[in-house]
C-alpha cells in the first residue's frame, strides 16, 4: 500500500501529484518530462515536497502537516536511478555490497555480474552498469523498491532474465515496487497499478488491467502499447510440444513454453494489435487460441484505428482494427464474434508469474 501526495515547484515545472496504490508493482507511466523521476525522488526522500504526505505500508515517510520527514537512510528504499550512480572508487563487488549482502548469490547470478566483480565502474558498459545498480539496490534488502527505467539499457534476453526475479519479489516477499518505464510490455507484465502522469499531475490511476484495457487510455499509452491484462489459470503443461495450456473464463489459451504450475494464476498481457476478430469460427489457422467474445464498445480514435472493447467471459480484451475492417465487419456493441489471439505474440515476455 503506497500513498503519495506531493507538491513541489521546480523552476517552471510544478509537481502536484497524488495517488494511492495497493501492494504490488505501481507503474509510473508518462512522457519524458512528465515528472516521474521527481515523484520517485519525493518518495525516496531526495526531493522534499513543499506539501504532501507519503506513506508506504502504513509507515509515514513524509507528512508536511505533521512535520514528519524520515531521513533517506531510514526509509530503506532501494532506488535504481535513471543514471546508474555507481561509486566510481569501489569495485563492482564493493558497490554491490555497500547496502548489504541480501540474497547476494542469487542476485549476482541472475544479473550475470559474476565476471564483473573485480572491475571498477569506469570499465563497465552501459548495460552492465545498470545491472550493477539494480543488483546493489536489491542486495540492500529494501522494504520498497524504486526502479527508474532499470531495463532500458538492456537487451531483450537480459530483460527476460530479470523480469521473473522482480515478479518473484512482488509476489513472494510482497515488496512494494514503484516502477518507472516507457515500455508498456514491461509495465503490463509487472504492474498491479498503473499511474499515468502528464505535466506533473496524475491523469489516471487504477488497476493495470482496467487502465490498459480502457479504450480511452489508448492515446495515453501510445497506440502500440495499448492492450489488456487478463488473469488466467494454468491448466496443464504439454511437454511434447512445450506448450502451457491456460484456462480463461471464455476458453483455452495455449502459450509456448512452460509457465507456472497447474492451478497457479497467471497474468497475461494481450496487446490490442495482436487480437484479430473473425465473424465465423476460424479454422485451419496457425493461431491456436480462438475465443468467443462480445463486442462491448467501439471507440474511434483520432487516427485510422478503431479500439474495440470485448468481453471474453468475465475478462476484458481490447482489439485494434482499421476503420475499414470495423465497418466491413459491421461491428457494434452486443455483437458476438470470435477473437483470435496468436500465442507466440503473447509469450514469453508478457506473461506475468
Amino acid at each position, binding site marked *: 500500500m503506497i500513498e503519495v501526495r506531493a507538491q513541489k515547484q521546480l523552476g517552471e515545472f510544478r509537481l502536484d501529484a497524488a495517488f494511492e496504490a495497493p501492494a504490488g508493482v505501481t507503474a509510473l507511466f508518462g512522457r519524458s518530462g512528465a515528472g516521474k523521476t521527481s515523484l520517485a525522488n519525493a518518495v525516496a526522500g531526495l526531493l522534499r515536497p513543499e506539501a504532501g504526505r507519503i506513506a508506504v505500508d502504513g509507515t509515514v515517510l513524509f507528512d508536511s502537516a505533521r512535520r514528519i520527514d524520515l531521513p533517506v537512510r531510514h*526509509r530503506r528504499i532501494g532506488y535504481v536511478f535513471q543514471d546508474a550512480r555507481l561509486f566510481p572508487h569501489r569495485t563492482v563487488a564493493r558497490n554491490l555490497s555497500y547496502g548489504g549482502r541480501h540474497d547476494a548469490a542469487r542476485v549476482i547470478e541472475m544479473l550475470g555480474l559474476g565476471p564483473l566483480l573485480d572491475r*571498477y565502474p569506469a570499465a563497465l558498459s552501459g548495460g552492465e552498469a545498470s545491472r550493477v545498480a539494480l543488483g546493489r539496490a536489491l542486495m540492500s534488502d529494501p522494504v520498497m523498491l524504486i526502479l527508474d527505467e532499470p531495463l532500458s539499457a538492456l537487451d531483450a534476453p537480459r530483460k527476460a532474465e530479470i523480469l521473473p526475479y522482480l515478479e518473484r519479489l512482488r509476489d513472494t516477499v510482497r515488496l512494494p515496487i514503484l516502477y518507472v518505464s516507457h515500455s508498456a510490455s514491461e509495465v503490463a507484465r509487472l504492474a498491479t497499478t498503473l499511474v499515468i502522469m502528464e505535466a506533473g499531475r496524475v491523469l489516471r490511476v487504477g488497476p493495470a488491467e482496467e487502465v490498459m484495457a480502457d479504450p480511452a487510455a489508448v492515446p495515453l499509452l501510445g497506440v502500440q502499447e495499448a492492450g489488456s491484462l487478463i488473469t488466467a489459470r494454468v491448466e496443464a503443461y504439454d511437454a511434447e510440444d512445450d506448450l502451457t495450456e491456460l484456462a480463461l473464463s471464455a476458453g483455452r489459451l495455449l502459450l509456448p513454453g512452460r509457465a507456472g504450475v497447474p492451478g497457479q494464476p497467471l497474468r497475461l498481457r494481450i496487446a490490442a494489435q495482436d487480437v484479430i476478430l473473425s465473424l465465423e469460427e476460424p479454422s485451419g489457422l496457425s493461431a491456436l487460441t480462438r475465443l468467443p467474445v462480445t463486442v462491448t464498445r467501439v471507440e474511434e480514435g483520432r487516427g485510422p484505428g478503431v479500439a474495440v472493447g470485448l468481453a471474453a467471459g468475465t475478462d476484458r480484451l481490447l482489439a485494434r482494427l482499421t476503420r475499414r475492417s470495423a465497418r466491413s465487419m459491421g461491428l457494434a456493441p452486443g455483437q458476438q464474434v470470435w477473437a483470435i489471439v496468436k500465442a507466440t505474440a503473447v509469450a514469453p515476455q508478457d506473461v506475468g508469474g
Partner: protein
Amino acid sequence: MQWLGPEEWAAVRLSLRVSAMATLCSLPLGLLVAQALARGRFAGRGVLNALVHLPLVLPPVVTGYLLLLALGRRAPLGAWLAERGIAFAFSWTGAALAAAIMGFPLMVRAMRLGIEGVDPRLEQAAATLGASRLRIWLTVTLPLALPGILAGTILAFAKAMGEFGATITFASNIPGETRTVPLAIYEFLQVPGGEGAALRLVAVSLVLALGAVAASEALAQRSAARRRG
C-alpha cells in the same frame, strides 16, 4: 657526517618531526573544516572561512606574535594550558603548532575543493542504501575527495618544512628544540660565509619535501588510474 654537522642533522630530524606532527594533527580538523565550508550552510560560515584564511593573509611574524600573545606563559590561555602540562611556546610542539596554523589555509582549501568536487548524487545513492551520514562521509565523500585531501596534506607538509617567520617568533630558535631547518638556514645566513652551509641544508630539506610531494603524487595517481578503468 662531514657534510652536515650533528646540529644540522638534528635540525633536519626536528623539521621532519615538527612537519609530520603539524600535518597529522591538523588533518582531522582540516577535514572537518573543509567539509563544513564545502557543504555546510550555517551562520558562522563566513567567519570560519575568514579565520581559516587568516594565517595566509597575515605576515608570518604577525601570526607568530599573535600566537605568543595567546599562548605565551604569561597569557591566560597559555598559563591555563601550562598548568596542565601543555606548553607550546618555546617547545617543539609550539613549532609544530605554528607550522600547522601556517599550513592550515592551504590544507583546508585543497580539501574543500576535493569535497566540493564530489557528486552529491553519489552521497544520495549511499543514503538510499541505508548508510549513515558518517558512513557516507567515510566511504563515499572522503575517498572521492582523495586527490584534494592528498594535495592539502602535502601542501601543509611542504609549508611546514619551509615555515620560518611564525616559528621563530612564537617558538624561538632553540637548538635541538625549535631550531628547524629554515631557522638553521637563517642562522647560517646571518653568519658571513655561511651561505655554503645554508645551501647544504636547503638541499637536504628540498630532497625531503620534494620526496614527499612525489610520493603523494604517485599515491594519487594510483588511485586515479583504477578509477579511470
